[in-house]
């Protein structure tokens, strides 16, 4: 029936009536099928009205009256559309609304994608300048060791290539040809070592941070490079070797002087507001000096007076040292990356800036917060819609660093007592944040490293004191309390892994001194070695005496 309601409906009507009906139907703006039905019905109405008219003129006149009676075509079309819409069956309404909603969503999605990919970061703070302001503790350049250290690094000869594991083995264990290579190299380093020694007389060491200036240098803190660190590390080895060479010749005083300078040198390298890598190098330099002091004490018959001087100098070199890591620079470096890896706030929305993330190589599956089950699509959806924005990321970064500021003040034993699981805490703070997962340094392991280093440093005065006690009294002390009682040590060092004194045990003709180590258990002074005989810190005790090879 409906198919029959076409142009033919209007053929028998006066032109004005046909035009009016067409206009109403046009203004209806609705589905064609419905419009044709209404057209047929209106045409029938006109036909009925004009049925009795005998002439065309009469038809025209009556049609015009009827059109007037129908009123405004546009209004009528609108009313008809609304009424017909109400007649629509529910399923059709649902389908129509669904399509409309999907269409709107697609449009919104396209707009969102365009907005997302056209957003750019706004770099508003020059953190490089901020570092250089923070790292300088005083204005007086004459108090700065940097000119000496920089010159020493510039003059430092490369390590001999013939011996690949050079620096790992001690001079004492080296064969004749290796000893010759080491002695030659140390000789070449003499001028640099003198400069370092002069530098350690200064109270501070700071330098102006610079970016590499290479093709990848974007002026961000990520481009900061530390050209001298490797050279300084080499020079610390040169100090240690020179001390061993001197000790082998029986020249203990200059040997210990070199190692004390090395301690001061390491301390200066890492102290103040420095980056973690600088603090670690400082720690490594000091640890090397400590290890060599113990080795020399273990291998050579050092006199009681030299021991007393060494103990005094060591206490002076290490006095007041804080063992936690300082995180301000790293925190600011994170802020710098946040301002570069997120679009600007407000109109920019503060979302991730993918171009930079890609350049940084973010997207690795190994980082926290991206599970193995995350498909590329799931990852894209997370980044597009669910990733924390700039403000929230900054908040999480603050939370992260505040947490570690507190953690570094707590010993591993205290963390254990309070059941603080660093990895879980970190994961809960940065979970779901791809940027932070990538950017945050592995501070959890650094915490243990810094306290292991503390235990090593604390062991030295005890060892020296015990050796002095033996020379004075003809026997080793029964316990640490006896050492303290006779004034050989001022206080008994506390093991950061047990919150109890370092473990001292007198043996038949020697003594044992150790920390319970990272497993928090007293393994009776036993170290853990793998099948290849390599020492591992995770298991067993950290034994300081007798010296472990």
């Amino acid at each position, binding site marked *: 029936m409906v198919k029959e309601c076409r142009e033919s409906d209007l053929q028998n009507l006066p032109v004005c009536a046909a035009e009016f009906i067409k206009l109403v139907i046009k203004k209806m703006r609705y589905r064609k099928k419905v419009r044709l039905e209404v057209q047929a*019905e209106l045409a*029938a109405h006109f036909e*009925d*009205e004009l049925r009795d008219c005998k002439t065309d003129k009469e038809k025209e006149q009556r049609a015009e009256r009827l059109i007037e009676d*129908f009123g405004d075509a546009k209004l009528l079309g609108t*009313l*008809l559309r*609304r*009424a017909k819409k109400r*007649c629509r069956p529910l399923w059709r309404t649902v389908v129509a609304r669904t399509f409309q909603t999907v269409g709107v969503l697609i449009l919104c999605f396209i707009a969102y994608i365009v907005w997302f990919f056209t957003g750019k970061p706004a770099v508003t703070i020059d953190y490089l300048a901020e570092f250089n302001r923070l790292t300088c503790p005083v204005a007086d350049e004459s108090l700065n060791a940097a000119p000496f250290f920089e010159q020493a690094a510039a003059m430092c000869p490369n390590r001999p290539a013939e011996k690949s594991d050079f620096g790992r083995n001690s001079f004492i264990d080296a064969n004749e040809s290796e000893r010759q290579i080491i002695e030659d190299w140390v000789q070449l380093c003499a001028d640099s070592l003198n400069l370092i020694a002069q530098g350690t007389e200064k109270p501070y060491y700071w330098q102006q941070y610079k970016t590499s200036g290479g093709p990848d240098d974007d002026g961000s803190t990520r481009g900061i490079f530390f050209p001298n660190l490797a050279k300084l590390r080499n020079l610390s080895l040169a100090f240690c070797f020179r001390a061993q060479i001197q000790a082998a010749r029986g020249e203990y005083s200059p040997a210990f002087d070199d190692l004390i300078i090395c301690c001061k040198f390491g301390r200066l390298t890492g102290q103040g507001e420095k980056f973690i890598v600088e603090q670690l190098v400082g720690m490594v330099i000091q640890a090397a000096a400590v290890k060599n002091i113990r080795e020399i004490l273990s291998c050579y018959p050092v006199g009681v007076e030299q021991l007393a001087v060494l103990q005094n100098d060591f206490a002076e070199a290490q006095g007041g040292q804080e063992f936690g890591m300082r995180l301000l620079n790293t925190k600011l470096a994170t802020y710098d990356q946040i301002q570069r890896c997120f679009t600007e706030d407000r109109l920019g929305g503060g979302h991730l800036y993918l171009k930079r993330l890609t350049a940084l190589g973010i997207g690795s599956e190994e980082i926290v917060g991206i599970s193995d089950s995350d498909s590329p699509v799931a990852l894209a959806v997370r980044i597009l819609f669910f990733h924390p924005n700039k403000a929230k990321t900054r908040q999480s970064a603050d939370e992260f660093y505040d947490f570690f500021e507190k953690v570094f003040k707590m010993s591993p034993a205290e963390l254990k007592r309070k059941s603080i699981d660093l990895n879980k805490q970190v994961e809960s703070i940065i979970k779901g944040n791809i940027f932070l997962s990538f950017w945050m340094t592995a501070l959890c392991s650094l915490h243990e490293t810094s306290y292991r280093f503390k235990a090593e440093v604390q062991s030295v005065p005890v060892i020296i004191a015990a050796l002095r006690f033996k020379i004075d009294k003809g026997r080793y002390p029964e316990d640490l309390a006896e050492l303290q009682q006779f004034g050989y040590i001022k206080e008994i060092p506390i093991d950061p892994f047990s919150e109890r004194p370092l473990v001292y045990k007198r043996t038949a003709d020697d003594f044992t001194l150790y920390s319970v180590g990272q497993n928090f258990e007293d393994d009776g002074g036993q170290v853990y070695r793998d099948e290849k005989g390599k020492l591992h810190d995770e298991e067993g005790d950290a034994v300081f005496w007798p010296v472990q090879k």
Partner: protein
Amino acid sequence: MKFEAQLLKGVAPVVVLQILSRGPMYGYELGQAVEQRSGEILTLGKGTLYPLLYNLEAKKLIRGKWEKTKSARKRRYYSITSKGKAQLAKQREQLKELTAGLKLVFGRKLMPA
């Protein structure tokens, strides 16, 4: 909107249902019937008629169906549904009450002279 138009707007659906309760009609026929049966007091504007019919159809109070007349012409006939009948009965009662109320307010003045 004028008072008369407001009144008509309110009663038009009941009037249409009442007339259709006597048998199916197509749009033109219905418009004529309203005028005739109301003594030409009630007149449904043509611009109102079809939107009104479609609205009543949407509420399922009437049903429209294309049929051929005796003269073989196609017309859309509207008939009242059972839901429409129930609605009509309810609205008639309401109209009665309204009329009674109006009589009480206006007294004899509302009655024809």
